[in-house]
């Protein structure tokens, strides 16, 4: 199917869209926390992938390639939006202790509770966490993508997990 898509078969590419859009949307949504923006980024990702198909190396798995495009676009979007949150302890403390809307969500099912907690994370933590957890990227890959050191990735993941576990402590025992 990928071979057909590379040859320009749009229908074959349409099947790739069908197969992967949910997965890529989940990751981008996790990174951005904004539904409309996530859908726009996913759309752009597939368009860019289609335009770049002749540079795709046959034989390699398609999804990681697509994911790389999508996560890069999402990161660029975040940078453009200038929404990088400062990493001072105050922010971390606030994110960790502020129950926010979670108090109202006690009856939500686990998935939705998790989503709400994730979206309340400071963006830098959230992005690192999503790339690691949703995309199974290594620390080095995340570091390269975000232009930070693997040690910083380690630190961000640790903090992201601490905050999430704190917010979800009634679910995680």
């Amino acid at each position, binding site marked *: 199917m990928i071979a*057909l898509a590379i040859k320009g078969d749009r229908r074959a590419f349409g099947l790739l869209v069908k197969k992967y859009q949910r997965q890529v*949307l989940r990751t981008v949504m996790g990174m951005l926390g904004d*539904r409309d923006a996530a859908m726009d980024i996913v759309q752009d990702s*597939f368009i860019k992938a289609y335009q770049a198909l002749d540079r795709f190396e046959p034989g390699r798995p398609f999804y990681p390639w697509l994911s790389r495009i999508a996560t890069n676009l999402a990161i660029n979007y975040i940078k453009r939006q200038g929404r990088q949150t400062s990493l001072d302890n105050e922010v971390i403390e606030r994110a960790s202790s502020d129950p926010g809307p979670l108090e109202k969500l006690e009856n939500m099912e686990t998935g939705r509770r998790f989503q709400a907690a994730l979206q309340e994370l400071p963006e830098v933590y959230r992005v690192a966490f999503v790339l690691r957890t949703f995309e199974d990227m290594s620390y080095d890959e995340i570091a390269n993508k975000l232009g930070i050191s693997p040690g910083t990735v380690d630190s961000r993941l640790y903090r992201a997990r601490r905050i999430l576990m704190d917010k979800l402590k009634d679910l*995680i*025992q």
Partner: protein
Amino acid sequence: MNDNADKYREKLSAYFDGHLTPEEMEEIAAHLETCPGCAEELQRLAQLHDMSHEADFGFDSNELDKLEGRINDAIAALPEKEGDAVTGRKKITPIWQRCTALAASIVFVFLIGRMAVKDLDRPFWMGHAHKVVPVKIDSVIIDVSDIGKPPIMSDGEQRDVSEKYDDVTGVVFGEDQPPENSDELNELTMPEPIPEEIPVPELAERKGSETPVVQSKSDSREAVTSEGSQETETVLDYKKESVSKAAGREKVSEVKGQLDRSLSDLGKAIAVMPQADEIEIADTLFDMEQAFIEAMQTRLKRKRNIYSLAETMDSDSVAVLTEVKNRSLFYIGHDPAIDELLARYMNARAAYELYRISPDVVKFSEVDSLRQECFDYLDELKNSEREIKYLADYEKQIKDWQIEP
């Protein structure tokens, strides 16, 4: 938690990810043996990880469909790429697209027709006139009378075509329905025998024409099965043969060509399948294609005997390919010409039924014209050089249909 717990606790996240040196991993593992607090913390990290997989952000299928539509529209609007598979070819509206419109129209008018028939004692245009939407008959394909009614064949039998006609796609199915999930497909269960009344055409490209050519029943079946087994045999032969590396490379190229052709054929087959099957077939193809390419690259890279390729191309992949191909061919085992003929016939019949119920909506001249179009198409098919299975059966049914103002 013991005295060192804080020190270790900060490393648990990296430990969970396996992002520590082997020494550190061992150290943490040893600590976990003695510190229940850290062991629980690790357990919580695992729970958090599991929980993350439940997050789908609430995108429902409508939103996903819309997104998919947006993406496909955007891609369709792009200029065609060089070497585009569709460049330079005559664009033919796929039968499934035509039949989707047909099916939608049929359902629409069928419901109206049913309402009308149900209320025949009290003419529906009196009681429900305000609900009747004037229909331009040339833009709507409709049927009332023959839905679910088997056509009468020349042998006098009534053959239940409706069971094999997918309302949504217009694809004719046999008793062998598509698998419910890809696992089922992966079990490599062979399809049920092809029903006697379903002709299996050769795929268009092999015959160099755009319209599938229907073979005789026995030939068709042979074409389907022999091709699959031939491919399996080709691969198995590699294991037996012992020839030069150059000849080996040629063989690999040949197999790759076969696979490409198979994928191309399957692409066409997929084009007429219901959406759910497309995904399953596509999933299988992804895996097969991947396995094939990886195997070839690995073997070539290692510069080992080219024929060991066959060992890596495991027989399961070939079997799946054969299975998918058989199913695909089976699913498209109908003649688009007959579909078209039936569509025209049903269109005219439906117009007539509507005319009889409500002559102010449809004029007799319109019905007559549609019927004539149906005859013209029938003659066109009869005069063509193609062998069209069951044409005589349908011809009898269509010619027997008389109308009167």
